[in-house]
């Protein structure tokens, strides 16, 4: 009980986290409440800080690749992709077609498994800890098994290389992946039957944490959170990196910008990702997977700097790299979508009840490995 505020109203300061099951790791919020209503919210970061950017300055360019796996550990392959793309921009490296298709395939599978895990997590944040999370993780595990067959590890893939990917698809992998993706819509339909009509879920999500399009742009939100506010902005379409211009897909967007829009948007994005995957499976050509001009040891990009970004499952993942022509980066900066999507957390939460804070945080979908780096 700290402060008398206004006409005799007493406010209460609560430190939520860092050890809290609904903060998705070690995230902490200092919340000031009037009764159960939030009047002020201050996020506190740094409990998982390891100065990844400093570490990268002491490693070779390739040496940072396995560390990017550990940023957003739910989707390591897209982190690899973002870094590889930025270095390819910096050094002007071409990527062979087959490698680009493999990147799209593993990238979209990463998006599917991230959004699947999200469906489970947000139910956990609403208090339904159990069935939904287990169903989601059961499906996610099957995608991780496919990743293990390809990259050798379920999560810490270390799969992309500058100018391509590390290894070609093993014999039979493509058929297995195609067969699995064909079964996926059935699971998604079941999940929708399970969740989206549920009256409790609707009342917990609809109208909670509303964010207008204008504020969302100014606050730098990206990815599903930005599109849920009604902004038509998908980096896959805007930048057209990789082979995305050759693939047909739609960009779903919300109308209200509340938690329910963010929830539904992920389901729609999974459906679009399945469309992309089916096209990529049909179109993938034979050929080399790695640009032979790129050396494994002693890789030195020319002097200069570059900013490369991709549409990660959580939003815009960007790498700002400065090279002095040496074997190590001069500056290596990450634009983490999880951190910047939290910029407007306070605006979303003020005026709601404390229990809604957890749902709003869940609907943003953060991973602390990326927030604190």
């Amino acid at each position, binding site marked *: 009980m700290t402060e008398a505020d206004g006409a005799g109203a007493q406010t209460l300061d609560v430190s939520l986290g860092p050890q809290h099951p609904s903060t998705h790791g070690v995230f902490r919020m200092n919340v000031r409440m009037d009764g159960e209503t939030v009047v002020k919210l201050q996020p506190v970061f740094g409990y998982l800080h390891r100065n990844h950017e400093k570490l990268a300055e002491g490693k070779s360019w390739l040496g940072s690749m396995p560390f990017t796996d550990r940023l957003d550990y739910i989707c390591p392959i897209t982190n690899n992709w973002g870094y590889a793309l930025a270095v390819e921009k910096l050094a002007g490296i071409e990527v062979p077609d087959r490698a680009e298709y493999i990147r799209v395939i593993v990238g979209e599978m990463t998006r599917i498994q991230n959004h699947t895990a999200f469906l489970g997590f947000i139910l956990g944040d609403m208090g339904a800890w159990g069935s939904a999370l287990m169903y989601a993780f059961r499906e996610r595990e099957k995608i991780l098994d496919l990743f293990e067959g390809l990259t050798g590890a379920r999560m810490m893939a270390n799969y992309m290389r500058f100018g391509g990917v*590390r290894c070609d698809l093993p014999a039979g992998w493509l058929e297995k992946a195609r067969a699995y993706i064909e079964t996926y819509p059935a699971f998604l339909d079941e999940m929708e039957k399970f969740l989206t009509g549920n009256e409790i879920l609707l009342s917990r999500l609809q109208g909670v944490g509303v964010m207008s399009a204008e504020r969302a742009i100014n606050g730098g939100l990206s990815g599903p959170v930005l599109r849920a506010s009604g902004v038509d902005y998908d980096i896959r379409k805007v930048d057209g990196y990789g082979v995305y211009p050759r693939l047909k897909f739609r960009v779903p967007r919300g109308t209200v910008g509340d938690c329910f829009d963010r929830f539904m948007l992920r389901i729609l994005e999974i459906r679009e990702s399945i469309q992309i995957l089916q096209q990529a499976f049909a179109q993938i050509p034979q050929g080399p997977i790695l640009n032979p001009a790129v050396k494994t040891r002693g890789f030195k990009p020319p002097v200069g700097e570059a900013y490369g970004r991709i549409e990660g499952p959580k939003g815009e993942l960007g790498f700002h790299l400065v090279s002095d022509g040496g074997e190590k980066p001069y500056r290596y900066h990450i634009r983490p979508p999880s951190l910047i999507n939290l910029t407007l957390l306070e605006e979303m939460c003020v005026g709601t009840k404390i229990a809604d804070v957890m749902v709003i945080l869940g609907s943003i979908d953060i991973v602390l490995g990326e927030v604190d780096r």
Partner: protein
Amino acid sequence: MNFPGSGIFKGMVVSAINLFGSYFDRAHAKRLITEQYPEERPTLPEASRSFPFLVFDGDPEKGIRCVACKICEKECPPQCILIEQDRDENGKLLRRPKVFNIDISVCMGCQICVESCPFESIRMDNIYEVSSYDRFDSLVLPKEKLLKSNEYYHSIHPTEAAETDARIEAARLKKEAAAKAAAQKMAAAKAAAEAKAAAEQSSQPESQA
């Protein structure tokens, strides 16, 4: 079906299907997919990797492929490799490691050592039961524990090992061919020199005459 609470009812039907379904479709592994480890062990995919090991051909002392060039030590991102080059009794450096330690409590299994090795000597293992009570003695693997035979490598990563063997064989054939060509060149040069000398000898009397 849109009576109040119908959404919850539909959800419960899905729960029930999953609950009872898990007793029946065990063979399809659709709903009940938990593996009863350690009684039931997963079959690892061929690409699966955990920690590095050193490959030797035939004899673990003589057949070691590593030449202690220290490239992997330099390239390793978390710097978990320690190499010391061996010396003979006169103090001359030998092309083999005396000490080769990998601290697997630091190693993150990224496979960059494998990619950077020019001698095909370090490869990824797929062991995963390496827990121990002591951090220092049993998690720092010395050379003796790291050395594993090429046959073992073939047993865990057959495709990759076959490719490696083919590359080594090709390099060996190339080297042999080059040596053969060099020997032939030498022989040809020698023969030419002899012929020239013979010719000079035979031409000398003519010039004198």
